[in-house]
């Protein structure tokens, strides 16, 4: 699985962190998304997909 985030679109809602905090974090200085793991293991797919679905800025893309 490959995860791509777009910090230009990110609004810092932090929904991805609540969904998968081993894959996403928020930067301390501005709260924008910080991708911790760009290639998470396959068993994390459901939570990562959920993070992408709930992102209010559509700033997360997931490829299988």
């Amino acid at each position: 699985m490959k995860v791509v985030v777009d910090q230009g679109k990110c609004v810092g809602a932090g929904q991805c962190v609540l969904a998968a905090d081993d894959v996403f974090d928020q930067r301390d200085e501005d709260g924008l998304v910080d991708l911790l793991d760009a290639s998470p293991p396959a068993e994390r797919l459901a939570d990562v997909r959920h993070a992408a679905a709930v992102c209010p800025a559509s700033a997360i893309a997931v490829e299988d």
Partner: protein
Amino acid sequence: MSIDAERLQLPLARPNVLDLAPLYEVLRREAPIAPVTTPAGDPAWLVTRYEEVKLLLGDKRFGRSHPEPEKASRISTSAVQDGPTGEYATEEADHTRMRRLLTPAFSAKRMRMLGENMERLVDACLDTLIAEHEQTGVVDLHRGLAFPLPVAMICGLLGVPEEDNELFASLSERMASTEIGAEAHQAREEFFRYMVGLVEGKRGQLGEDVISDLVRAQAEDESFDYVQMVRLCVGLLFAGHETTVNRIGLGVLFLLTDRSRWDALVADPDGRVDAVVEEVMRLGAPGDLGLLRYAKEDVDLAGVTIRAGDALVLSINAANRDVTVYSEAEEFNPDRPERTHLGFGHGAHFCIGASLARTELRVVFRALAQRLPQMRLAKELDQLQVRATLTGGVAELPVTWR
């Protein structure tokens, strides 16, 4: 039932505090963007389908300001969401600056760190309620838990003295009241003056809190207007308690009006609380209007032409019950496969307090299920006093476990 060519008058009367007017279902199907007359008597569009509500929330052709605010449609009869807000020319830049300033303070990680503190607060509230219940047999969960927890949390974050809670709660109540006319606007002025006093009192001794952060940022940035900064502080204090207090109340009512819902949570509070909170966020429908936007240009959508300057009321309540998105949409079912909703909005204005609210709601419902498994309502749903405010909800939440 079918939709008249005539304009519908908002608000659409609802059968009770948990359900919506049946007309919303007809609107979604037949007129997802319908011409309406607002409670203030002006024309607007009511948007009811999930697809269009989500689209419009994420579309930069729609904003919260208006190029000629005095000509814009007025919406609610309260002093909240009554009309356009912000400067038309600088709306996006102002909003970006505001988000940048506030986002770190409300980040998911910071809110999680507050979780333990919240748990202690909730336990203390429940200890007090349990002691009171031994004497009286009935306690008010609104006064004893739903109100004090969000108030304590937002006061701590913003740096507002908690002992002012009766004052700002009463100002919030009057400001959001839909039935007192000009007095609601007077309350908004009073709230503004209260906040000026707080801001100026802090200026000499700025601390580690959000209002201090905003005072610092405003002092360093001459494009950051003072009035705008104070209004933002008022908005944060208002939204930071008003919304969550109501949501706790609605959640308790959803859970206790059908015993099977409550029993399912009681059986596994840790495992089920997150899904229960999301379902409370989806179905809980505070207030009778929605989020307000003004079109910046002409837009053709869902069979209608929206003109530049037109007002739109985006019904989150209706969108979250859209049968084309949710199976058995009106049913309270935390196990549903659809896991997203618009309860915190969408797009650039997505609720900045979402992580705070989620953390509070999770702590509250987990603790209630663990400590008061026998809890039930002490009054019928229809007998509960509903607040005549823009944000709705109940004014009391009498429960018993005898």
